[in-house]
């Protein structure tokens, strides 16, 4: 008997939402099962039921053929189930080692043996080929390092089943490779893995089977080897999609510099940045983790204060000293960390959608007009197919991908001329990605200049008109995405060394 886990007839209802309806799942020993579905399909909810954070309204779970009740997180751990959550869940105020050994600390006379925690963390990092200082505070780490800590933390328990909910969305290329090696090793040790991702190439590379959910319903399971990306998309979306990337049939509208940055510099953050973007052009920024792309964007947007350099918009010199003045100059910035920088989690979908330009929802008495707000919010929800029971739903109740859509949509309200997107499609499903690309093209058609930061090479190569490669906080080269390859790009980065 090779079946490790079976979930049968799982149902879970949230107010206004049937998140899961009669869902089945089967996991084999030493296999990687992909769980696929659009944003809000119920993947995370199903996994939270398996890991004990949610209780199902109906359905049964069998482990090694025996029925089990997973009443809380501790129980799941005891049963050998470990999870890497979609949202980072580390304690920022503790060190790396303290996070990894949370609740498992070795003690002597009731006192935690700090030295042992650190040395054992080192051993774990060596085993999994991770390079992070165990004594560092988590708040000092980059997002991707935090994600690696999260992964090691889940594996430190020597689980039989590991759930990975979009583990790579916060990882750079190099770390993604490390993760794949880890997965391979785990498989050989007989560990079973449930793997959630919106990146097709990953699914085909590392998984054995694929189960698909749509709108909380179980659609089916196929062998990865016997299927194609088209078929999977059809199962997910319910229809065929001819193209993953919409066609942009122009490079730019006018050969003029909409935004130009000359000699931007901030010690320790970015050096001698020269770049420009034309109306209707999509400029891609590619680089490895820590290469400083986010910081460059933050510099342009006035969050990081440059110590040298000039900026021109429509050839006029401008001084951007804070986000307010950036917005005054019609610059919009979709940040990469939606929870920390993008969303008001306590507010509704409507309030989040309109927050970048409140003036737009004021009536002639300068008072907020509920109707205007609702109209705008409904447009956004419809345009980006945001899955929510109502525009008044508190946004933290939405699935991750749907939250991301709202984060992007809010910037449309300032009618930006320059749009900076930092990892805009992180955690977004294929059809929504398509919608976002289409939106970018529509904006470009209207003359907006777009700067897109992405860690996904296929995306950056297909979507951008011009590509800048960033390494060590500098621009190393400019490439034409239509006439280059992934390999060529990597040589610019690898060539310069780490």
């Amino acid at each position, binding site marked *: 008997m090779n079946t490790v886990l079976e979930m049968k007839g799982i149902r879970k209802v*949230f*107010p206004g939402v049937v998140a899961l309806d009669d869902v089945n799942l089967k996991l084999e020993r030493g296999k990687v099962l992909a769980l696929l579905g659009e944003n809000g399909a119920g993947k995370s909810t199903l996994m939270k039921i398996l890991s004990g954070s*949610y*209780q199902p309204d109906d359905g049964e779970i069998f482990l090694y053929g025996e029925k089990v009740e997973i009443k809380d997180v501790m129980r799941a751990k005891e049963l050998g189930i470990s999870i890497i959550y979609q949202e980072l869940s580390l304690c920022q105020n503790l060190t790396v080692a303290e996070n990894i050994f949370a609740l498992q600390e070795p003690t002597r006379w009731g006192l935690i043996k700090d030295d042992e925690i650190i040395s054992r963390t080192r051993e774990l990092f060596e085993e999994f080929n991770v390079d992070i200082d165990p004594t560092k505070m988590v708040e000092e780490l980059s997002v991707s390092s935090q994600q690696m800590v999260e992964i090691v933390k889940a594996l430190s328990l020597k689980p039989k089943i590991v759930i990975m909910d979009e583990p790579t969305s916060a990882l750079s290329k190099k770390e993604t490779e490390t993760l794949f090696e880890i997965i391979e090793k785990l498989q050989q040790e007989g560990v079973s893995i449930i793997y959630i991702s919106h990146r097709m190439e990953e699914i085909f590379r590392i998984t054995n089977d694929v189960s698909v959910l749509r709108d909380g319903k179980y659609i089916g399971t196929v062998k990865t080897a016997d299927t194609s990306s088209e078929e999977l998309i059809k199962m997910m979306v319910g229809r065929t999609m001819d193209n993953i990337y919409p066609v942009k049939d122009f490079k730019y509208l006018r050969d003029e510099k909409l935004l130009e940055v000359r000699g931007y510099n901030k010690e320790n953050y970015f050096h001698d940045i020269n770049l420009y973007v034309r109306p209707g052009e999509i400029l891609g920024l590619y680089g490895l983790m820590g290469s400083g792309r986010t910081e460059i964007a933050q510099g342009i*947007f006035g*969050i990081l204060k440059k110590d040298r350099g000039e900026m021109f918009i429509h050839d006029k010199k401008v001084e951007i000293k*804070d*986000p*307010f003045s*950036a*917005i*005054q100059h019609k610059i919009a*910035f979709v*940040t990469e960390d939606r929870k*920390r*920088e*993008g*969303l*008001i*989690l*306590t*507010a509704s979908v409507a*309030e989040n959608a309109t*927050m*970048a330009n*409140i*003036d737009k929802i*004021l009536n002639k008495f*300068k*008072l*907020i007009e509920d109707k205007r707000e609702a109209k705008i919010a409904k447009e956004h929800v419809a345009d980006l197919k945001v899955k929510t029971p109502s525009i*008044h739903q508190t946004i933290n109740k939405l699935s991750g991908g749907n939250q991301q859509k709202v984060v992007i949509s*809010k910037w449309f309200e300032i009618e930006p001329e320059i749009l900076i997107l930092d990892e805009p499609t992180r955690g977004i499903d294929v059809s929504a990605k398509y919608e976002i690309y289409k939106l970018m093209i529509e904006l470009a058609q209207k003359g907006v200049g777009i700067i897109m930061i992405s860690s996904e090479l296929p995306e950056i190569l297909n979507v951008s008109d011009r590509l800048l490669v960033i390494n060590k906080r500098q621009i190393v080269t400019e490439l034409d995405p239509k006439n280059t390859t992934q390999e060529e790009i990597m040589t610019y980065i690898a060539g310069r060394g780490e």
Partner: protein
Amino acid sequence: MQLKKIMNNRYFKSYGGVLLALVGLVILFSFLSPHFLRTNNILTIFNQVSIIAILAFGMTFVLMIGEIDLSVGSTLALSSVILGIALSTGVHPFIAIIFTLGVGILAGLFNGVVSAKLKIPSFIVTVATMGIFRGIGYALTDSRPIPITDSVILKIGNNRFLGAIPNAVIVMIFILIVFHIVLSRTKFGRQAKMVGGNKVAAEYVGVDTKKLQVKIFMISGLAAAVSGILMASRLYSAQPNTASGYELDAIASAVLGGTSLSGGYGTVLGTFIGAVIMGVINNGMNLVGMAYFYQQIVKGLIIIIAVFIDVRNKESILGKK
């Protein structure tokens, strides 16, 4: 179903729980005392509540952005001392009022600037200014009350509008309406809500969070100064030792009314309901003639129960895990 429709109404969601608690209390006390439901007593309750309520209206703004203002009682006292001093120099009462409001705003400015610009937690800043403002009030008066004799000022807190509704209640309702609209319907209020929900995200859409914080403390200071004027009038004197401990009542009113202490949620109208609950408890227990110790105990229990009803109500509407 009709009931379900009501239950799902957005306003019922916001206020349902506290209103329920309030109605419960009113029913309780009208059984316990025949005097409770008389028009005159109702007006008395609103009058008694007015000072705390106005403080709490200002406090709602402060709590909304996730900060706290423990200095409101002291600001109230200082303002009323300033009013007393100004009047005693013989200036026109109108000028004296303007001046007093100015001092209240200035006190708020100080709290706001020190907390926002020097990045000191507002709890600490306002614990400190709680002592500082009161100390200044004592120093200015040598800790003696200043009698208020000006008839205009005395009318504000003691007369009744059209012979029916106490002026203080009119003032309170006026501020209630203005503050409620500002918080729930203006850009400024929306920004405050954003800052309370996620400061970084608010900064990224161009909100100057420091300036906003300063303004919000100024609103709280202004509210305290208005209360200070009402207080001086009601007490026929400016008392430097007045209103100590009122900060906690103001905060409790706001939280009873559904304002979150960690920011992001709250309405001025809810705070008003919260303040009325506190007033009904105090008045009702006095009418019943309950002994002092038991008043303290019962008040505490009622506050817990009222918040519990509200928490339960929100949960049952919003659902839970």
